């Protein structure tokens, strides 16, 4: 299939599996272990789309599709800037 990326496919499967395990742990484990698993789940769910965008941007850059590679980089900058401002308590 055109554009098939086996590494990306595998990565998405692993991250989806990790999110499932961590979310189940967050729902089942009481107290601090549950909250830690929940925080890890949140990190996976926030991070997975960004990893995907970074990966496809990298593939496009290597293939010479600079315009879309730059758009992927810009997208990451937007999301990470929002996260950084919120983490710093600015917004």
């Amino acid at each position, binding site marked *: *299939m*055109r*554009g*098939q*990326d086996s590494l*990306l*496919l595998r990565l*998405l*499967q692993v*991250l*989806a599996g990790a*999110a*499932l395990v*961590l*979310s*189940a*742990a*967050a*729902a*089942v484990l009481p107290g601090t272990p*549950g*909250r830690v*698993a*929940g*925080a890890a*789940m*949140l990190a996976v*769910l*926030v*991070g*997975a*789309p*960004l990893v*995907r*965008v970074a990966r*496809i*941007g990298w593939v*496009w850059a290597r*293939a010479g*599709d600079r*315009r*879309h590679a730059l*758009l*992927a980089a*810009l*997208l990451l900058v*937007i*999301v*990470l*800037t*929002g*996260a950084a*401002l*919120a*983490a*710093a*308590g600015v*917004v």
Partner: protein
Amino acid sequence: MVTDVLPLWAIALVGLGVAGVGALGGLGGAVLLVPLLVLLGVDPLLAAPLGLLTVAAGSLSAGAAQLRTGLVHQRLGVTTEVAAAGGAVLGAVLSPLAPPVLLARILGVTALVAGLAGLARRGVRNRPLPPFVAEEAGEWPGTLAGSYRGPAGSVPYQARRLPAGLAAMSGAGLIAGLTGVGGGFLKTPTMTELMHVPVKVAAATSTFTIGVTASAALAVFAGQGRVDVVAGGAVVVGGLLGGAAGAAVQDRLPAVPVRLGLSALLLGIGALVLVRA
């Protein structure tokens, strides 16, 4: 805490149902989940992150399967997400300040308009081209064009009206950040009706992009301390299982009934939201 209002098993069950329905039509399911949770007594500011958690979970669980089909147009997704993610970050920042009644009315009217637009269109816009029957399905490198495999051969398409599409996507992102819905119910009709992307490609691409939009808003919500991760765990378990089931069926469904079903769903949601407001 959300768990002060609802037991974890109930949260998981609601997440399962809405993610399964949502994945069929490129919806994240949160457009159903958030109003349901609020009706059940959850604070809208706490329900919004749960909505986006189930959106992110459904998008992630469907990701690999939909990538294999060649229906996801990643260049179109990334291009439109630049606008949508910007809107989502802005919406998440503004959400604690926005009047809930005004937000609900905007949401309801938008869903009704998108549903009516989908119902008004007839037939299939992109016809199969016999010379392309042997072509592989997927996006065409460097462009916002591509093809997908239909019953009568490979069907080429080209995304149109990009500036208008970007404007609509930024609005979808803003609503996602403000209310906690994924915005798929706006993104899929925007791609099909405004940008002339086939409904199956639009639905699969929306499933990818709503995950990015959710990520952008959730990152801000997390910084604001609004994410209940234990309730989130319950809703995500349901969302992952429901999203996988919906994605497994999505590619086997015919385009026109999917579009009509999606439109009917949008009309119902719009009416419900307006009645609630």
